[in-house]
């Protein structure tokens, strides 16, 4: 008689490897890895089927600290390597961990194509607006004026918006979170995991050594209610300590504005309801300037489509169905042949 196999659900700690974490004390990555451990436990992931792939940078050390399969690769190329992994074995649950330099600068091209192909993986961008591992140079997401070892007079480059880039590349899932929000972030990661296709998650991560406090204006808990808006599909886009502020389309213009409920005859029904399948809305949410607007967090966009590996695998299946593979000997003899007799 077969005894039923009881698969014990893994706990968050089960997903930690035996390697000592070597990020700087106080680094936002500590908080993020905790959220990832929790999300994996919550969604019932298995260690053997989970693969973490990274490029180069502080964030890229992530796989070494996981007890799953992991591949620490080369700068910027993690999306390309992950694409190969997913094509070779679509059943694997693949997570890519990257930083703003790795993803948006040296690896921008691979990220673009990974997104547009809609490879079924979770892409976690740890954005701290700085190069940490190389000791503090400005990054492609750094604000204009960022002083760094390579920009002593301040950066003169316009930063890129990671989420706007993702939406522009055709992402079908875009979300944002904050490193220290350990109550919220696991839920966002679980949504990303549940989404079939490329899930792009930007996590605002504080680099305590080279860019400390760069996101304080909206991550500070004291003012968070007024500086953050946690969006939820089907719910009105309301925020504020008194839950009386909301987003609406500015009359006569294709742009958002912050409106106060109870002022100027504005009621709750005037506030927009979040529709996560609306790409235009997601783009506007991602582009809201601060401090005039709050920073939109949560699942900004989710509208699944066929995945890349599905398409590739089904072509292989179709080819097999149409022309069952002949023995290699027959393939070599296909077409025009002739016989030379002894």
């Amino acid at each position: 008689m077969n005894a039923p196999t009881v698969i014990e659900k893994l706990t968050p700690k089960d997903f930690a490897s035996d390697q000592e974490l070597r990020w700087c004390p106080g680094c936002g990555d500590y908080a993020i890895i905790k959220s990832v451990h929790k999300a994996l436990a919550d969604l019932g992931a298995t260690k053997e089927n989970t693969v973490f792939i990274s490029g180069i940078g502080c964030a890229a050390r992530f796989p070494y600290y996981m007890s799953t399969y992991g591949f620490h690769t080369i700068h910027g190329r993690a999306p390309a390597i992950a694409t190969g992994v997913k094509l070779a074995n679509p059943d694997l649950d693949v997570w890519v961990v990257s930083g703003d330099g790795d993803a948006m600068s040296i690896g921008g091209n691979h990220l673009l194509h990974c997104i547009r192909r809609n490879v079924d993986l979770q892409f976690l961008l740890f954005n701290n607006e700085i190069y940490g591992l190389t000791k503090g140079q400005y990054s492609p997401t750094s604000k204009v004026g960022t002083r760094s070892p390579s920009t002593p007079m301040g950066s003169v480059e316009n930063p890129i918006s990671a989420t706007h880039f993702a939406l522009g590349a055709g992402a079908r899932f875009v979300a944002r979170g904050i490193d220290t929000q350990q109550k919220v972030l696991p839920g966002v990661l679980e949504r990303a995991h549940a989404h079939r296709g490329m899930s792009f998650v930007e996590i605002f991560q504080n680099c305590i050594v080279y860019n400390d406090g760069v996101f304080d204006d909206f991550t500070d808990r004291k003012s968070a209610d007024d500086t953050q808006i946690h969006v939820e599909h089907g719910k009105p886009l309301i925020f504020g300590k008194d839950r009386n502020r909301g987003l609406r389309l500015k009359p006569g213009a294709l742009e958002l504005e912050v409106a106060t409920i109870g002022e100027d005859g504005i009621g709750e029904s005037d506030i927009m309801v979040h529709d996560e399948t609306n790409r235009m809305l997601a783009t506007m949410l991602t582009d809201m300037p601060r401090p005039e607007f709050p920073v939109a967090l949560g699942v900004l966009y989710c509208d699944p489509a066929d995945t890349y590996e599905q398409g590739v695998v089904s072509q292989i299946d179709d080819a097999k169905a149409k022309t069952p593979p002949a023995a290699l000997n027959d393939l070599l003899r296909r077409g025009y042949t002739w016989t030379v007799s002894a």
Partner: protein
Amino acid sequence: MATSTAVKLDPVKPARRDLESVVVRFAGDSGDGIQLTGGQFTQATAVAGNDLATFPDFPAEIRAPVGTTFGVSAFQINFGSRGILTSGDRPDVLIALNPAALKVNISELKPGGLIITDVSTFSERNLAKAGFSENPLGDGTLDKFKVIEIDISKLTLEAVKPFGLTNKEGLRCKNLWTLGLIYWVYNRDRQVTIDWLNQKFAKRPELAQANIAALNAGHAYGETVEMDDFAGFTVGAAEIAPGVYRNVSGAEAMSWGLLAGSQLAGLKLFFGSYPITPASTLLHILSTLKQYDVTTFQAEDEIAAICAAIGASYAGQLGMTSSSGPGVALKTEALGLAIGVELPLVLVNSQRAGPSTGMPTKTEQSDLYQAVFGRNADSPLAVVAARSPGDCFDVGIEAVRIAVKYMTPVIVLTDGYIANASEPWLIPSMDDFAPFPAEFRTDPEGFHPFLRDEKTLARAWAVPGTPGLEHRIGGIEKDYDSGNISYDPDNHQKMTDVRAEKIARIADDIPEQTVDQGSASGRLAVVGWGSTYGPISGAVANACADGLDVAHIHLRHLWPMPRNLGDLLSGFEQVLVPEMNTGQLRTVLRSEYLVPAEGLNKVNGKPFTIAEIEDAIRDRLEK
């Protein structure tokens, strides 16, 4: 019943002349269908039992302006009743379908050679485009050749008249008319081409009929028109090993070899590639083999192509990638990763003339240094090279074998010449190849990712999805005993040594170097690799026939090299290394074995001629 008393008389024609071998070059505008004409002639010639070798030479421009010299496309075939090793030095026959084709190719035609031209194309305008100030037909320029002037355009249009084609469509049949004439010249059977046309134009039978009519008209022209006592030639069948043959290009044979290797290893083939001339054909061919579980991935760039292949190998398929020199340069960092994490990978480099973009459609073998040494740090890998189109099949299999058995990237060097050229190929039987199944580690007991096989030093291959073997690998140096990250100085020394030793041990697992022709020691060894095989072989054969003491050694394994190579070379007074580069193998042989190797080098985008190498041999042995 009436009885016919008429006697059918054959027209009195001079007899055909027997030839041992002949070199024919078809040349015309890139829109004239020259490659196709050459391909058909090749097939008919193979069926006639000749040995043969071909060389297609087409312009880099996709559609160069009509009638210009840089828009000339050519196809050369050397065939004969004896063994044919190269596509031939200088053509005996030039078919020039326009003035530009004549202009570009005339300097290479043998004195006394035959020119067949379409006179209707020798208009003032076309002559000017080709850069002729006077019409070379009739001004004495071509006096040292035999010229047959035919109004091919007019005759073609007459032949296809019944089929209601437009003038433009009709003129497109010109190549078939010409082919028909050449079939008559060499007494070839037209049936192969007729069958092919019927199949190709199955949906437009009027086009098939028109092309067949043009083919037959060209043939009939040769049969009936007296061309100054010219009666055509006979080239007898060659002595060829019995068996089933086909024509194969290097790109085809390589694709099939890589697939065959994957099957022998029991792995699915993953091919990540980015379009680049002349390597793209591999991607095209493999993308038609999906029913064999081949996954092809056209990546966003060269880097992504190799990275996806590495990802596929990590996940348990056999990752492969391909490119030419400039693309291989882009893949270099990822090659280092594959070396560091010790995953199997095959990279095919179809070499072309460089540096930088160089001459994409012209052949060269100047990436040997890049393959063997061209990476940062001490980053050894295995390098093999194919010597002919058919040889690509065996080399493809060998590359896969080494990659899988030693958990290493393997670079396969081929070149534009081998990739595009075709030759008759004795089709092998897969039953003659011993399988070399890949082993995935599944036992968690005592496992770590850099646990090594004692003999090969290959690390254990555990793929994601295997319970209990979860592990992390990466580009950072690994601890020899655990696979974890290590910055320990002694450990790095040990890991560097073991990576080098693993590659060095491949030399124990490859055949000893043999001598292709000549004796195993003597006055001169001619050492080659890659596509110089044909001309070296021909040159050494000629020299040996004249009693010169010369041997031909041809390398397949370029890194590591066969164990006995140093001893073998030390048995010769002189070592000559012909290469289509400025002396790369020569340098490697000198540094590895301290032999006084001398180079015979050229980089003009064209393969060596037999004569060039034969002259170099005679220079050394007859003075």
